[in-house]
């Protein structure tokens, strides 16, 4: 088909046949990703709503439960996620410039930071199991010196706090696990040289997902760890 060189030249092998051009494909893909994130807002929104209502009802218990969480590990994990968001943002840029080695390095750094986050989270969860703060049959809570002498702490209500803590951090961690898996696949393809300045949508969309998961944690940290820390 040498009589139509213009069409042959402009066709990118990554372009799906139902899109007019690469730009349209990128826009459609990006819009789809943002729509997915909108459903994720709804998904996490339900849990945030439950959290707000129970926090309103059981504030003393939520404050007591929050105080048992390790604020240092929580803050370190926030910093780890922020660093991973930076490596993701830089990896999109590396893909835009077609820098293969830099892209692979940054993606691997993102995966490692994601695993560090999950590791720290695992340590926190393990200590909750040791302290019998996991809701259920063996739940036990010794209220340390109550901040307000008149408030009675009901251990049953503290279970609600820890239920929400495990549900919210658990679902967040599940998103992190999925994100790490996603980036592992992208690293493989990036290493193979699949992404360049003309085609890097998968990196961009995975990046959007990762940043979204980061934003969820940005809210979880103050809501779960910092309820009533004042001396």
């Amino acid at each position, binding site marked *: 088909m040498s009589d139509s060189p213009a069409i042959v030249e402009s066709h990118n092998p990554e372009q799906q046949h139902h899109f007019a051009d690469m730009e349209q494909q990128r826009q459609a893909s990006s819009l789809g990703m943002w729509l997915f994130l909108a459903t994720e807002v709804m998904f996490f929104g339900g849990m945030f709503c439950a959290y707000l209502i129970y926090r309103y*009802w059981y504030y003393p218990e939520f404050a007591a439960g929050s105080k048992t969480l390790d604020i240092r590990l929580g803050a370190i994990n926030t910093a780890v996620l922020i660093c991973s968001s930076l490596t993701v943002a830089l990896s999109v840029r590396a893909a835009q410039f077609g820098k293969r080695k830099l892209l692979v390095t940054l993606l691997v750094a993102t995966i490692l930071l994601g695993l560090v986050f999950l590791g720290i989270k695992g340590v926190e969860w393990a200590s909750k199991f040791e302290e019998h703060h996991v809701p259920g049959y063996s739940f036990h809570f010794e209220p340390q010196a109550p901040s307000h002498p008149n408030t009675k702490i009901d251990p049953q209500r503290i279970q609600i706090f820890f239920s929400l803590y495990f549900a919210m951090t658990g679902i967040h961690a599940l998103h992190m696990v999925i994100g790490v898996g996603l980036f592992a696949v992208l690293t493989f393809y990036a290493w193979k040289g699949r992404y360049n300045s003309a085609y890097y949508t998968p990196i961009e969309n995975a990046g*959007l997902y990762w940043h979204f998961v980061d934003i969820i944690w940005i809210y979880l940290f103050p809501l779960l760890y910092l309820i009533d820390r*004042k001396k």
Partner: protein
Amino acid sequence: MSEHVVSTKLYYAIWIALLVLTGVTAGVAFIDLGPFNTIVALTIATLKAVLVLLFFMHLKYTSEKMTSVVVISALFWLLILLALSLADYTTRPLGVN
């Protein structure tokens, strides 16, 4: 390259701002501000989320109006969920669950 390319300097600046704000929010939590502790914590969290959205997620540079429509709808629906639910629960007498 149709997408806007952000300079690395700006990325590093946002990164440092996010880390500083994390430190601030953890530090302020130990100071007794009464009901303002929660307000300050959530304001800082929202500021951080906006920084991530605008710069890391490129919302500031997007030329596609549909992206903004999706983001604004998502936040609007979240607002309906939270505001209407809390309008119910916070106006009932306590203990009448």
